[in-house]
């Protein structure tokens, strides 16, 4: 494939630098990852009423997502079937129909072609409108979060999330109200490969103390101790890292959910008031996750920080550029003041002018652009931190690493990335369902650790 053997080495836990640079790799990603995976489109809270719509991306495809009269959600490609003009240029709104500006063709909320100007006089009644609907996209929702998929053979969204739902339910359902998103999103262009921020959010607890040292010292509180990555921190006791079959993963810092928020009374109280119910429904391990701080990515390109509550999509624009969209996650049943404060704090830390997020931009772009050089590009990058200190766990599904500072979730992310790129179709992916985690060879890691602790 592509003359680049071994883009990802699961045994040595490293990757070719071409994965951040090469155009052919990127084109294959568009086909085999973005056109086949479930991609985040929105949340019910962004289009709560019938007729509400938003426009968004699925990788480089423009999409309209619309709330139907029957309460369901439909999505279709934002391009006219006449001469291909973009149908809708608004970010959001409420519309019974979408009219193409070029010659005035009219599309319904579900993307069907309902009217064209001069249909009788100039098309002589011969236009088969039923065949000219805008291209339809599969849509499924989970706990209010709406995803789209361009592959009829993909598993259901629930199967695609798979055992990761065990984790997501903890926060997306929580004590009952669950989470919603606040928009409108911030949008910005960043000159980097989409995987750099995706891997950063899925599993990079390591960079926090170094990259964000300045901001952490300003914020103070629980995470200030991470500034400078001091060797005396008991990292093994501070959290875990998780990865799952379809590449989704996260790291958790225990008891730190609102740590980045300076004004946090409402959010901290909400967590304190609801954690017991989460414990009752989901058990003590998940109650711990509920009050922890997560850095998470849903494969491929959607990431969030639970606790800080920023929510991001990394829309790819070629191998060397992305468009970042940033929303805020808030509990649906929190009071309006708490929601607004969470939004302000999440934006101050992780928005376009974020006190932490602004630290990361150059890491993202320079990890991509150094590979302009051929000698540089002919090398590999490493994600071996904590290899062997991870494995299947008696309680947590997937593969669990022993510390939130490790690269367990990177390994899981790139393991699935390689699997998708190698597979000609979803059937070939499903054939690996029983053996996917065999690369994590220390099968007794957690049993031994639990025994030793007793």
């Amino acid at each position, binding site marked *: 494939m592509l003359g680049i053997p071994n883009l990802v080495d699961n045994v040595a836990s490293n990757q070719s630098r071409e994965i951040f640079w090469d155009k052919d790799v990127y084109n294959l990603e568009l086909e085999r990852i973005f056109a086949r995976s479930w991609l985040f489109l929105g949340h019910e809270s962004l289009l709560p009423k019938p007729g509400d719509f938003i426009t968004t991306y699925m990788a480089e495809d423009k999409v309209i997502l619309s709330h139907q009269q029957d309460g369901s959600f439909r999505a279709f490609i934002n391009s006219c079937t006449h001469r291909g003009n973009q149908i809708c*240029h*608004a*970010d*959001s*709104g*409420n519309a019974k129909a979408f009219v193409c500006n070029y010659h005035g063709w009219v599309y319904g909320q579900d993307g069907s072609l309902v009217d064209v100007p001069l249909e009788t006089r100039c098309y002589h009644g011969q236009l088969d409108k039923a065949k000219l609907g805008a291209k339809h996209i599969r849509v499924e929702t989970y706990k209010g979060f709406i995803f789209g998929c361009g592959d009829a053979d993909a598993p259901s969204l629930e199967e695609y999330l798979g055992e990761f739902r065990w984790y997501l339910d903890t926060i997306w359902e929580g004590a009952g109200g669950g989470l919603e998103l*606040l*928009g*409108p*999103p*911030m*949008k*910005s*262009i*960043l*000159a980097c490969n989409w995987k750099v921020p995706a891997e950063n959010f899925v599993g990079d607890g390591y960079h926090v103390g170094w*990259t964000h*040292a*300045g*901001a952490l*010292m*300003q*914020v103070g509180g629980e995470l200030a101790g991470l*500034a400078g990555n001091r060797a005396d921190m008991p990292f093994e006791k501070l959290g875990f890292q998780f990865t799952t079959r379809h590449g989704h993963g996260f790291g958790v810092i225990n008891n730190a959910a609102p740590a980045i928020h*300076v004004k946090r009374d409402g959010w901290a109280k909400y967590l304190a008031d609801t954690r017991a119910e989460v414990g009752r429904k989901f058990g003590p391990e998940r109650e711990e996750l509920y009050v922890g701080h997560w850095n998470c990515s849903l494969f491929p390109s959607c990431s969030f920080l639970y606790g800080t509550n920023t929510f991001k999509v990394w829309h790819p624009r070629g191998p060397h550029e992305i*468009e970042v969209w940033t929303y*805020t996650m808030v509990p649906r049943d929190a009071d*309006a003041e708490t929601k*607004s404060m969470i*939004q*302000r704090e999440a*934006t*101050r830390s992780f*928005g*376009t*002018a*974020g*006190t932490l*997020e*602004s*630290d990361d*931009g*150059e890491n993202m*772009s320079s990890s991509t652009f150094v590979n302009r050089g051929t000698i540089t590009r002919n090398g590999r990058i490493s994600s071996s931190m904590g290899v062997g200190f991870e494995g299947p766990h008696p309680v947590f599904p997937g593969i669990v690493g022993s510390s939130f500072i490790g690269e367990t979730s990177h390994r899981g992310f790139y393991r699935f990335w390689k699997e998708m790129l190698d597979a000609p179709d979803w059937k070939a992916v499903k054939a690996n369902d029983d053996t996917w985690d065999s690369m994590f060879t220390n099968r007794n890691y957690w049993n031994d650790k639990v025994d030793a602790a007793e």
Partner: protein
Amino acid sequence: MSGKQTLAGLDVQSAIEMHYRSEVRMLQNGQYREWLADMVAEDIHYWMPIYEQRLIRDRRPDPTPDDAAIYNDDYGELKQRVERLYTGTVWMEDPPSKIRYMVGNVEAFDAGDGEFEVYSNVVVYRNRRQLEVTVHTLGREDKLRRVGDGFQVFRRKLLIDARVTQDKNLYFFC
């Protein structure tokens, strides 16, 4: 803004323009602490709302300070942003980047009680590392009050023109 406002008069107009010029000089020189202490009032609301692209027929109201915003800060929050730049561990600013402001179309109106409403246009050029150049244009709506023989801003609303920011970040003051 309505056409009924009273122009502040040439002496005030030029005093405010001079105030803006020294504000720009401080920000270009990295004198953020001095800027905050001298030119920003402690009851500041520093706000950069997020405007969506909406159809003209859309009747939803404009964003308020309860809605999404890139900046939505009080004095203490601005101070955190300023102090971060003095920690010595903001790697993106070492070596430091450059910023240059062009402020124009300053229009000052008298709001009574020694307060003024001032509108201006701002062009921001940023250069960093070897070749990075980014440009931003903003409209600025200020409320200033007289303090001593100068002014302090106590409301600042920044209207950024681009829907999608073509820059790594918007971490600069205006």
